[in-house]
């Protein structure tokens, strides 16, 4: 096994709930509650979960876009949270993020060419004369045309904007790309284009992805290893084949069985979970999933299950496994 590219250890990110006379913290939303992920170079780690699972927060804390509460994030052995701001800024090009919303993540008043090229200049990765060529190269790599370079974001469709967002990250030759629901806002036919682009870029540029999505079909297609989050905790991580062939955690099972499959009259076992996702500010005791789990026993409500190694690359947090 190779050296990890990104090592997230026991990461916690709590958002305070403030209230009262002096704005005292009266509670905490444990958006990320003790998560560990190891990502190796060249792999695609998929992080799935429903709303409120904290998957996006993991993505943002993993590259120190927000502060953590506890834990460690090491990028190639360097503790990101120990770096002084200037050092961190220098490291930024190596750690890129692709946003979900291709509309709000591009500055409406900056031309595409400048949006892609400015960081190159800023970090001295290219001279003024080279920038334009570098931008043109990356545009064509991302399936855009050279004449797009002088246009403004509002002249593009959602799919094209997402390509611009990818190009903006890619031009910096990053080693890790955190993609936060990059295809969720796109139509099916455009989704396929972008998914293929992600795949191709991984092959040509040797990229490593932390791919965050709620869409299990997309994750299965793209990722080599997968982690399933529920209410800030990791329920299960496994290699893709293991996870999709034989999910161990009841939540993973339910999640997989809930995904609609475009094959009519397909007979399959279905676990329809009862109830709603609990409020992350007030998660259930013990195993956070016990309120909705069809297999829950008394112990689940009392004791928080440990995230255990269960052989191979599999880890599961469930008393019943």
């Amino acid at each position, binding site marked *: 096994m190779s050296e990890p590219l990104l090592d997230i250890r026991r990461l916690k990110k709590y958002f305070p709930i403030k209230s009262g006379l002096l704005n005292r913290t009266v509670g905490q939303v444990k958006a990320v509650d003790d998560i560990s992920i190891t990502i190796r170079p060249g792999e695609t780690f998929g992080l799935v979960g429903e709303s409120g699972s904290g998957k996006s927060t993991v993505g943002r804390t993993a*590259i120190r*876009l927000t502060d953590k509460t506890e834990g460690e994030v090491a990028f190639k052995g360097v503790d990101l949270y120990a770096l002084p701001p200037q050092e*961190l*800024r*220098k*490291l*930024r*090009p190596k*750690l*890129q*993020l692709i*946003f979900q*919303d291709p509309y*709000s*993540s*591009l*500055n*409406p*008043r*900056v*031309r*595409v*060419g*400048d949006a*892609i*090229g*400015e*960081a190159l*200049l*800023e*970090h001295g990765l290219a001279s*003024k004369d080279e*920038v*334009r060529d570098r*931008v043109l190269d990356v545009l064509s790599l991302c399936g855009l045309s050279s004449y797009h*370079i*002088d*246009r*403004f974001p*509002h*002249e*593009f*469709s959602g799919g094209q904007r997402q390509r611009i*967002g990818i190009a*903006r*990250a890619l031009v*910096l030759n990053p080693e890790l790309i955190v993609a936060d629901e990059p295809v969720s806002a796109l139509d099916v036919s455009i989704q396929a284009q972008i998914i293929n682009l992600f795949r191709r870029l991984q092959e040509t540029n040797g990229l490593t992805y932390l791919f965050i999505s709620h869409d299990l079909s997309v994750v299965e297609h793209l990722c080599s290893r997968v982690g399933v989050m529920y209410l800030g905790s990791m329920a299960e991580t496994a290699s893709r084949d293991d996870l999709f062939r034989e999910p161990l955690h009841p939540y993973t099972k339910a999640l997989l069985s809930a995904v609609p499959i475009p094959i009519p009259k397909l007979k399959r076992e279905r676990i329809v979970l009862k109830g709603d996702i609990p409020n992350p500010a007030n998660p259930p005791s013990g195993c956070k999933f016990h309120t909705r789990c069809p297999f829950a026993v008394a112990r689940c409500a009392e004791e928080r299950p440990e995230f255990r190694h269960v052989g191979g690359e599999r880890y599961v947090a469930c008393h019943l496994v």
Partner: protein
Amino acid sequence: MSAISGGLPAADTPIARKESVRTSLWALALRRLLQNKLAMAGGIVVALMFAICFIGPLFSPYTDNKIHMALMNKPPNWKHWLGTDALGRDVLTRVMQAGRISLTVGLASMVLSVFLGSLLGAIAGYYRGIADQIIMRIGDLLLTVPSLPLLFILGALLSEWKVPPEDRMYIVMLLLSFVNWPGIARMVRGEVLSLREREFMQAATVLGLSARRKLFRHLLPNLVPLLIVIASLNIGGAVLSESVLSFFGLGVMPPTPTWGNMIDAANNLIDFQQRPWLWIPPGFCIFATVIAVNLFGDGLRDVLDPKQKR
């Protein structure tokens, strides 16, 4: 949304070609503004008002400001379209000269208060923390004190400093800006706070851009539309405030004419009842200017700041 070609070249940039014909948001906004009839009518009236007041007196034969006893208090006639005043001066000429002062005061105090308000508001919103607290608390304080009495007190205070009458207009500008900045600062702060949280600002952090670049290249340009709207709507308010102050003898004082202190003639019972040509024309000028500025400003708001449509 597809591309629409043509339009004006926007700000030049290092990587994109300068001679580009692609449309920036600015060009789009301008095009839509040109289609707004009310706004354009307002814009034209404002422009005319400026032109008439600043160029008009050059063509008037009555600019000497001398006292002509023979011409005292003549109603409008062919020689003096708006009649003459108690000193035999041509009212039309005085209205135009007054317009110069009133418009200058309005414009200058707008520039000053928008400058102050946006600077302080932007600092408060961008740096937050202690700077924010201090600036906004002072703003709250000034907003608590009723503005008209405040202006009156300040006007009276400054009157006693024996400021030469010709310099009083500068004092009035300062006064109006002093009273106006907190409201502007509040709006700007709110906008900066919301811009800070926009995803493209996060994207700038991810790209590792410097704080300077984030502020000047990404945040401030997006603040400009709001500033333009505030500025245009603020001129009208400033012209109105100046006229009130001058009408009550606390603003710009005669012999320097302004629209406000010309209406002061109405405080004389005979002038008020018998000689409306002395005070009605400046009143209409104020009205016409302010309504035109407001229509234009509203049009600007529509094209630049669609989410704040009111």
